[in-house]
């Protein structure tokens, strides 16, 4: 291909953090194309993206942007050159308003004073682009859920003029309607000649949006395909480097007695009168749009948020859960969705993070810790969940996003609760590891544990769950059993509360 046709040309890029992360990585991007980047967790996708946008320097190799060398010293320099990126990890400033977050480095001002009305006007426009038109731009960003924060970050990036747009797992916390809206916008940008690098683990959406797909493995580009030429299975094979084992079909598990029963649970504005039961040996899924209150429901059950009403029964007995410790005593565990805020101790090692809530098991007399035993357990989970790291002593903050997620999962698997609530357990996890996760969840259910999974990926829920609840506007709007459900029915149920509400709140 002619050199000039390429907006971005990367040759033999090198980068290493103690160990090599990028090895002779070559890549090209044309203007007006969506070029997807796939690879297992830790393959080096985010690292490449970070080099492009000036967050970390490369050790060797060359990048040319429209024919000119591109080696930005800072994110600001990259933005000047027209390279805009949405990071994989959320970087929202909780105490600032949504509007301030979107326009943080270009606040409209006169003589140093922020022009609030102009700011809010532009923010509203930017928010409308990602479907958050109703959101008050003055809302503190910290009050939003992960999904909304992700949308706010997207709104910020999409409101800029750019030549290259890099999206690093933008949809990991989004549900289908938001993804559709995002894709609509990306198609528009593509027509305007913007080159888009799109990192994701969701093969279906990659097939839909990407023109070309590059597969990364261990810091190298192993193949680049036209999107129409490949099947997801083939991509996965290339990512992993070998054939994936045949995945086990839905094995029938006998549903046991009711393990958890929630009646008329209410909490804050987001959870209204939620009732459901969960049986031993069952995997129950909850679907819903962002902001439908799924996270808040789990948090309320777990005692992480204050309940305003409702009762919880474990094994038929009423339990009072005022804080997470109560929940744990009752045998309930919650894997939170926001790994950075609520899950991980970033500067601490994988070992410390994994054993955090099982620590007493490793204590000998006097609370003395047996670090050797800790290490062995952690190592076992590392292998089981395919956490790619240098050693279990590596700081979690140095891991790739997906691997961080696996550490949180490992912690809860180690805890061995009888009732497990998973909030977006596969957020950012690669395809192969997802399969492993599903196996693990099925195994847990097989052992007679009660498993509740909240996910934004409908397909995941449909392939995993024995039963499915749909939430909308804080209420449970439908319940499905396998065979009953279709994508369309679920989506309609997810929107149901919205339709009613629209009529209520906009009488005019």
């Amino acid at each position, binding site marked *: 291909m002619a050199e000039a046709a390429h907006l971005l040309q990367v040759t033999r890029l090198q980068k290493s953090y103690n160990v090599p992360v990028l090895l002779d990585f070559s890549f090209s991007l044309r203007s007006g194309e969506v070029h997807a980047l796939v690879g297992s967790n830790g393959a080096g996708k985010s690292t490449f993206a970070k080099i492009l946008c000036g967050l970390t320097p490369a050790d060797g190799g060359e990048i040319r942007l429209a024919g000119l060398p591109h080696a930005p010293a800072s*994110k600001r320099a990259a933005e000047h050159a027209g390279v805009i990126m949405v990071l994989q990890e959320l970087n929202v400033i909780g*105490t600032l308003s949504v509007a301030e977050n979107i326009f943080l480095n270009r606040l409209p001002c006169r003589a140093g004073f922020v022009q609030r009305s102009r700011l809010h006007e532009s923010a509203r426009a930017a928010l409308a682009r990602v479907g958050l038109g109703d959101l008050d731009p003055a809302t503190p960003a910290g009050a939003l859920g992960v999904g909304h924060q992700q949308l706010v970050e997207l709104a910020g990036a999409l409101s800029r003029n750019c030549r290259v747009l890099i999206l690093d797992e933008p949809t990991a916390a989004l549900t289908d309607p938001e993804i559709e809206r995002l894709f609509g916008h990306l198609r528009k940008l593509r027509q305007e000649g913007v080159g888009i690098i799109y990192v994701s683990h969701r093969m279906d959406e990659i097939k839909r949006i990407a023109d070309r797909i590059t597969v990364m493995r261990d810091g190298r580009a192993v193949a680049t395909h036209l999107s129409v030429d490949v099947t997801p299975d083939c991509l996965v094979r290339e990512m992993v480097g070998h054939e994936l084992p045949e995945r086990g079909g839905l094995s029938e598990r006998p549903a046991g007695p009711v393990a958890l029963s929630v009646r008329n649970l209410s909490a804050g504005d987001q959870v209204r009168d939620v009732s459901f039961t969960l049986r031993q040996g069952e995997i129950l899924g909850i679907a819903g749009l962002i902001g439908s209150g799924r996270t808040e429901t789990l948090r309320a059950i777990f005692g992480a948020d204050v309940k305003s009403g409702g009762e919880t029964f474990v094994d038929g007995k009423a339990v009072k859960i005022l804080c997470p410790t109560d929940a744990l005593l009752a045998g309930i565990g919650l894997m939170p969705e926001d790994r950075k805020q609520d899950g991980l101790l970033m500067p601490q090692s994988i070992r410390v993070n994994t054993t955090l809530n099982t620590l007493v098991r490793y204590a000998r007399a006097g609370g003395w810790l047996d670090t050797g035993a800790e290490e062995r357990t952690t190592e076992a989970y590392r292998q089981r969940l395919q956490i790619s790291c240098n050693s279990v002593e590596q700081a979690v903050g140095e891991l790739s996003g997906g691997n961080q997620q696996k550490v949180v999962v490992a912690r809860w698997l180690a805890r061995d609760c009888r009732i497990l609530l998973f909030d977006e357990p596969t957020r950012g996890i690669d395809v192969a590891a997802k399969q492993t996760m599903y196996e693990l969840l099925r195994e847990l259910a097989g052992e007679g544990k009660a498993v509740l999974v909240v996910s934004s990926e409908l397909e995941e829920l449909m392939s995993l769950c024995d039963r499915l609840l749909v939430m909308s506007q804080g209420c449970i709007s439908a319940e499905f059993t396998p065979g009953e459900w279709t994508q369309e029915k679920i989506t309609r149920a997810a929107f149901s509360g919205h339709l009613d509400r629209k009529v209520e709140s906009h009488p005019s």
Partner: protein
Amino acid sequence: MTLKSKKLVEYAAMLVIWLGLVLLFGMLSQSFLSLRTFVTLANRIPALAVIAAGMTLVLVIGGIDLSVGSVLGLSGALVGLALVNWHLPFWVATLLGLGVGLVAGTLNGLVSVGLGIPSFIVSLGMLEIARGVAYLTTHSQTKYIGATVEWPSAPIPGLGVSPAFLITLLVIVAGQVVLSRTVFGRYLVAIGTNESAVRLAGINTKPVKVAVFALLGLLTGLGGVFYTSRLGSSDPNAGVGLELSAIAAVVIGGTSLMGGRGSVVNTFFGVLIIATLEAGLAQVGASEPTKRVITGLVIVVAVVLDAWRHHLTGRKFSLLKRLFTARPASGTPIS
């Protein structure tokens, strides 16, 4: 709107706590509830108030400055030297006092930000150094200055309060406006909340942080001038322990030591509470031990009341929200 009214509720709550304290002392001493007391109070607080205003900004970015007491002493010492020994005019002396504060603050900022070491340590070093220099320049001598320096703290006839107090009010209002309305102020809040996110947004946080320390230095210099002017003397020992009072005032006003949250107006109420407590206890003639115990209790109780109020309005607000609007009002940030 909601945001604004929420802020007003916060101010009102602090005001109520302060009024409670005033009433308490009013009951204990008949002569406390007099115009005199309030005028004395108004003329007493400028030095602490301007420093606490600057300290608010420093705490908002998650920094700390322990050197304010010493720098106030140094600034006052220089003013005294300039007026008494070098016979310079008042405004030159004032500029010198402000200048030395600015230099000390800028140094604090440059060293801690530039070398990446905690501001706690840098300003602790500056605490010792500034005090040492103040002793050196004055030979540890108190200097009586007299009328030349007294007018900024003397009540304006017909008004009752002093020019220094008016300047203080100006500083407080300006500080609050800067914090909540300017780009600089928003950056401060952002840096205090999540500095790495701000850096990721492509903003160079270093100059912003240095500027905050410099600003506090300047205000500390101003505090030194006010202090000297109120006492009519310059005292190289001035301000010993002031850092704790200033930080306490800020924290009583609800600013977090962890950064990311703060209000200059509430800091002013914090200063008022501390000053009223001191004045009231002296008026009642409490013994030193009693004074200590009561001061300790009141500080804690004031903050407990404030926390409790937060809790209450938090609830009420979520009620209001449900009743009147579909849009969620600003909830408390996830801490």
